[in-house]
């Protein structure tokens, strides 16, 4: 049965797209068929990590949501860009054209269409996993992606605003009867004791912490021009992603 994994954080800049790209790549490299949706229509970006250039993209998620194209035509095989076999890893990008973003913000879209798009692509590409990269905060589409998730991965930084926002998101997730919530702590500093941090966060939110990621200059240097774990598979950060991916595959 296909599994849906949503990657979310209450605030921006936590590393959602980075996590989505690395986890999706790791799962695809393990032999599964994986689809990635960029539902962050107000500020899309994950296509950069998969090295999908705007000029290669003719149809986007926006066009599907406007009823102009079937979702299948907005799915791009990005496996080759991250060293994976063809027909294993697909990305549905959102449009980066200012006009397109303005139109979707102005007119909105039918959240039912989004759900039908997920479902349709999972069926037609026979996906094992669907990863959903989300816009930060809470909105109708966040509610939708949380509601359909087998695993919801919430990313937070060691920061008071993130702690509070994560608590709000947990409330919503419980209201939506989400099955599994995993937490990942990103951008921790060297002075923090990872074990103590993990224990404190797990106690606070009553959900397992699947990985702890230190603030990494190596990740920053790649600057969204590729998927980190594909470029540096033996790096400790890549190993932490592998740990989280395994946790996701077990929970899902």
């Amino acid at each position: 049965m296909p599994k849906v994994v949503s990657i979310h954080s209450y605030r921006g800049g936590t590393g959602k797209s980075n996590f989505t790209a690395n986890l999706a790549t790791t799962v695809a490299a393990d032999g599964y068929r994986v689809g990635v949706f960029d539902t962050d229509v107000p500020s899309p970006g994950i296509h950069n990590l998969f090295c999908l250039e705007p000029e290669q993209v003719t149809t986007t998620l926006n066009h599907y949501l406007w009823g102009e194209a079937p979702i299948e035509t907005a799915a791009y095989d990005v496996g080759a860009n991250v060293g994976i076999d063809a027909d294993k890893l697909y990305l549905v990008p959102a449009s980066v054209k200012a006009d397109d973003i303005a139109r979707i913000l102005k007119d909105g879209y039918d959240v039912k269409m989004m759900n039908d798009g997920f479902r349709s692509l999972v069926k037609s590409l026979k996906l094992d996993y669907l990863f959903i990269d989300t816009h930060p905060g809470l909105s109708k589409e966040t509610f939708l992606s949380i509601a359909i998730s087998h695993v919801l991965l919430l990313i937070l930084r060691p920061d008071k605003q993130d702690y509070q926002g994560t608590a709000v998101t947990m409330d919503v997730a419980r209201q939506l009867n989400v099955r599994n919530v995993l937490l990942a702590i990103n951008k921790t500093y060297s002075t923090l004791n990872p074990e103590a941090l993990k224990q404190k966060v797990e106690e606070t939110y009553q959900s397992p912490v699947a990985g702890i990621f230190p603030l990494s200059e190596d990740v920053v240097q790649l600057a969204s021009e590729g998927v980190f774990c594909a470029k540096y598979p033996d790096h400790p950060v890549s190993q932490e992603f592998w740990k989280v991916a395994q946790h996701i595959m077990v929970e899902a």
Partner: protein
Amino acid sequence: MSDLQSLTSSITAVTSPFRSYLTDLHIQYQADNDGAVADYIPELALAKPEWFGICVVTQAGQVFEIGDCDQMFTIQSISKAFVYGLALEDHGREYVNSKVSVEPSGEAFNAIVLDETTNRPYNPMVNAGAIATSDLIKGANGTERLKRLLAMFQRYTGRELDINVPVFLSEKATGFRNRAMAYLMLNFGMVSDRVDETLDLYFQQCSVMVTAKDLAMLSATLANGGVNPVTQERALDERYVQDVISVMLTCGMYDGSGEWTYRVGMPAKSGVGGGITAVAPGKLGVGTFSPLLDAKGNSVRGIKVCEDLSQDFGLHLFNVAKPKLNLDDCLTGNDVDNW
């Protein structure tokens, strides 16, 4: 219900297996292009053959809308069932029954036939019976009677409705057969002598603009004992709900009513505008809209949707077998597990 709960419930409706089921039905029957758009007046011929909406409203007030559920069209004969309910409220069962019988006629909707012994029209769903029913609607003048009728529809649908004036004028200008029937009934004393006012009211009630969602609200209100399940407003006296549903079952689908009862078994009313409203008492209301009609004047796609819903969820009134799909599970479950 808190705002968080209400938003959660709307998302749960989106992710439910029932919505996916309806979406699949919509895709399946959208491809079916059998039937023809009604063209006896030019306004109806403007309908696009591809228009297709399915709406279901449950007794708990959950709303499922697939396809063209906001497209307006004229209610046409579907109005007859609900005006009958208002006439019952205005005069009571006995008096209304003395003016209009409740026997299926087996004749076409526009037949000029009255019961030979009592001179009553056969039932409130054929044109003659509907005109006699409209005659019973109380009010000092035509305007007041129309306003009462529109207020009645508003209680069912939860929104203000209007009539389509060009359709009304066209129906009025070409409705010679209905005019003839009205005067025949006047001759037998079955309608009062305000015949022209009543005919106007009848043409107006057929010209009320509705959507598939409105049709689902109409039948869901009947399914919920006369109370709109979303607004909780009462639209029809509890005592008369079964009267309206009964005549829908026996006479609602024109001269296709017998086969409809056998195959679908959901009390329903269709209109040549392309609408069907169907009731599953105590469970839900269905509203469908697709203007492609069969030879009897019923929406081809709408019939298929109702047939499938009835069979798959055991919505036939007399069903005792375990249905293929459990309605409650489909309404409350999460469809992602069926992907």
